[in-house]
């Protein structure tokens, strides 16, 4: 609910709020006088009632105020009006305060009636101070209503100077990356690799033939450390040694120094000296 007939919001007008409180004496229309919508809560209502006492808030009679408030709420009850819970809580508390002020102080650790009354007085003063301050604040010349800013602000031209963040390191790193990529995709350059030459193989086969009496498998002629291994390098070395040795045996066979035999397609190759005359029974399945 907005405040349809409430006071001008910018100017909390105390006179307007006094009117319903004065009506409490029964001179006006009861329906209007208990319109709690006019108050910003129980403390605001209390403050309005307190102003009726027309004395400085520091000298207010809290007892009289409590009685006024209770009468106000009672009147609302009589008219069967809805009274918000916090107004009722305050009413209960004020009834308690009233009893504490009227009765002799019991021997308890609870605050005395005077202390409670003082606290309430402070609360009222503080709220009043804020309401007054609000009114003074709102009465100041205000921007957009009383005081005006430049109506046609000029855009001060802003030049953007673009600064690109890149360091020499970034530049060199980028070039290094390009070079590395090139290595992966550029033309193939074979590095010098340690391989078993045919000359080496011929020398080795010639030297070994004298000591081998009969048919001997070709791979037996390979040097022990060239017979293969697990690494690709070893395998390559073994293949180059095998190829060189095979070419060497063909060379020596051509020279009539040895014979070569293979028992079936993809079977192992056998080699032996030609010193003893070749046996006619044996098949001489020479390689081309």
């Amino acid at each position, binding site marked *: 609910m907005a405040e349809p007939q409430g006071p001008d919001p910018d100017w*909390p007008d105390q006179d307007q709020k006094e009117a319903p409180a004065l009506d409490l004496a029964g001179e006006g229309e009861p329906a209007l006088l208990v319109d709690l919508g006019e108050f*910003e809560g129980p*403390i*605001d209502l209390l403050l309005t009632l307190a102003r009726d006492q027309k004395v400085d808030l520091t000298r207010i009679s809290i007892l009289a105020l409590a009685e006024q408030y209770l009468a106000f709420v009672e009147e609302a009850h009589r008219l069967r009006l809805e009274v918000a*819970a916090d107004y009722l809580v305050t009413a209960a508390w004020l009834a308690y305060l009233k009893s504490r002020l009227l009765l002799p102080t019991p021997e308890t650790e609870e605050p005395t009636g005077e202390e*409670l009354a003082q606290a309430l007085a402070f609360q009222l003063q503080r709220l009043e101070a804020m309401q007054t*301050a609000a009114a003074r604040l709102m009465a100041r010349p205000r921007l957009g209503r*009383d005081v005006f800013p430049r109506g046609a602000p*000029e855009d001060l031209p802003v030049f953007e100077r673009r600064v690109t963040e890149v360091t020499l390191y970034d530049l060199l790193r980028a070039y290094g990356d390009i070079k590395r990529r090139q290595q992966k995709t550029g033309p193939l350059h074979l590095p010098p690799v340690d391989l078993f030459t045919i000359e080496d193989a011929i020398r080795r086969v010639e030297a070994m033939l004298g000591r081998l009496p009969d048919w001997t498998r070709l791979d037996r002629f390979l040097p022990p450390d060239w017979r293969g291994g697990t690494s690709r390098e070893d395998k390559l070395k073994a293949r180059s040694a095998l190829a060189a040795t095979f070419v060497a045996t063909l060379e020596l066979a051509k020279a009539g120094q040895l014979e070569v035999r293979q028992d079936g397609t993809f079977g192992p190759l056998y080699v032996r000296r030609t010193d003893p005359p070749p046996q006619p029974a044996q098949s001489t399945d020479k390689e081309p």
Partner: protein
Amino acid sequence: MTVDTVTEAPADQEEGFDRRAEQMRLVEAVLFASAEPVEEAALAARLGPEADLRGILDELQAHYSHRGVHLMAAAGRWAFRTAPDLAPLLQRETEVTSRLSRAAVETLSIIAYHQPVTRAEIESIRGVATSKGTLDILMEAGWIKPGRRRETPGRPLTWLTTPAFLDHFGLESLRDLPGVDDLRAAGLLDARPAITTLFSRGDDAALPRAVEDSAED
């Protein structure tokens, strides 16, 4: 700058005057061109470190103090504004200035005078629960902003006013709030929790919040 012969001093001085005059024109133009207050630091950055910005601003302010436009400062920001005394001749009713509810006005002044202040404290002072819309409206107007959380149980948020608040109400600083010194001297800006103890409630709300005050907004 040369620091040599005697006869050169006047020439140097004259040059200094010229430069200062140019700096003043520049500050005048920059402030005039902007609808929003300009940070003093931004002006300083434009003039360079040796410039007597403060002196220039003071001189400008004095020059304009009798004119139709005044140079105002708020929270270290500077702006030209029409002279407040011309308000009756210039007045316009605008939405922002007329729409505020009493709840919003009271809440704004409580935040202004008591900042940093929590919502519970605002409620304790007003003696009524604050509807969420009230703070929203004040925030939307650009007058309040959340501050740091209070290091108490529940770590409640505190509220502060903004430089735009000072600008809107023509205040140079919070010390210029109407009557702030008297209120402080009277102890009325104390954080004393009056009603909280009255009702001896343990929770953070001063008063029952069951009923939001319907008068707001």
